[in-house]
């Protein structure tokens, strides 16, 4: 299946990545080769097969519960320690509302 450049642009937008115009063709071509390789899965009959999302069955489908005890959470200082921009105990981002 040929992958068009506008398709690559659409996926990049979904993934919040920018692809330079000059790289679009090359990206589409490599993308297409990889998808072609995936095409082999179409040959396999999986009509009555349930998908596996976790291979080790212990605890699958159930969320382990713990006792509802108070625990120490990281404080504001820790949470902000790696923030590229912060202000008055908050993460700072570019202006969102005009």
């Amino acid at each position: 299946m040929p992958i068009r450049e506008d398709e690559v642009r659409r996926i990049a937008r979904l993934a919040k990545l920018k692809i330079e115009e000059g790289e679009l063709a090359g990206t589409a071509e490599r993308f297409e080769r990889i998808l072609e390789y995936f095409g082999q899965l179409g040959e396999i009959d999986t009509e009555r097969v349930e998908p596996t999302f976790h291979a080790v069955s212990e605890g699958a489908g159930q969320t382990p519960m713990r006792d509802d005890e108070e625990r120490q959470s990281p404080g504001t200082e820790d949470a902000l320690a790696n923030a590229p921009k912060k202000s008055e105990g908050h993460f700072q981002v570019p202006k969102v509302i005009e």
Partner: protein
Amino acid sequence: MNEICRWSVRQLRDALKRRELSVSEIARAFLERFNEIDSEVRAFLHVDPERTMRQAAELERSLARGEKKLGFLTGIPLAVKDNISTRGVPTTCGSRILKEYVPTYDATVIQRLRLDGALLLGKTNCDEFAMGSSTENSAFFPSRNPRDLERVPGGSSGGSAAAVASFQVPAALGSDTGGSIRQPAAFCGIVGLKPTYGRVSRYGLIAFASSLDQIGPMTRTVRDAAVLLQVLAGPDSRDSTCSRAPVDNFVSGIGKDVRGWKIGVPAEWLSGGLDPEIRTAVESALKVLQGLGCSVREIRFPHQKHALAVYYIIAPSEASSNLARYDGVRFGHRSERANSLEEMYEATRSEGFGPEVKRRILIGAYALSAGYYDAYYLKAGKVRTLILQDFRRAFEAVDLIVGPTAPTLPFRLGEKTTDPLEMYLSDVFTVTANLAGVPGLSLPCAVSKSGLPIGLQILGPHFQEGRVLRLAHALERELTL
């Protein structure tokens, strides 16, 4: 090089116990080795000699005062892959986007190592976000194979493998999503173990593909791998996928015989694109196993040929979701070239991620997007079930599965960087263990005519690391490399 740098974890511990060596002497010897060799090997991204020596001195004092008992790893310098969070020590994941990131907490495995008294010597290089098979996808520099500096050490835990193989540390931690512990172990001629999914906590491991990632030891001896796993393994309430099953004693089986064990060899693994020298090496190892009283039989892995396609759909899908967190707000790089929030996200991610990471995010986003989900992600999940069934059937007939770790010898730097599919083929024998969640170990089994190491892979049923290690040790004793 100081002779003690060649010693195993166990030999170093024995010397500490007999007080023939001090913790500081050990730390100094390995730091000297780092100074001597790492400008060529480039295994490490961060080393802080002063901090390591300070920790060594503190440890020495608490040992002398009797406040601390000698554990398995007390005073042993270890290297840790740079995708494992270390409090106060940079953790870059080999990525520009985390270049300045310094975690405020330790991964569970690091807490366990610290509790046991291990010394953190440094953080090792890896492919960006563990995506790669050669360390050439590191945003900083490629590491080199200590056996031949023109060749790659494998990946993604190539820095850890190279550090252990060049005697800069006796052991290291790696992570394995599709072979990232076992393949570099094979390339560098060391032992690497990927435990059962859920045997070791992933808390603090920077996520790549959450249903496949697992942390494990990289060592020069099988016994050392057992010792490290003993310290690392166990339940953790902070990782809901971490198993609550009790931890076996992995060390006690080491040295026991393997007579009567049934070994399966997947027919599909010894045909096709396998390097003939590797095939010969695997066949000789199988003869050695027969000599030890094992019976060897051929088994079938009918869905093996699809494993790589399944893996390269599932892993990027999970990655595209996991890597959504790098938005330039809470941690990591933020682009200065943006006026709006949307622009900031896009510019940050485009500047921060390298080409392979972007490619996998795009593939994952595509495989999960409306209209393609059923054909790719869901289909891959279904074929994953068939692969799991292949393993179940196999382990009804045999105790362990043995085969090659990698299809080729260590390749040259730059040899496989132009075609992503070519690089993906490096993982053809290793991804199945991650998809099925089973434990897998790579053990050096031969040396090629050109002097390069060859790895043998041993796979076991879920939670049977003890059995895998026992066979590996029996084989290690017989092989003289």
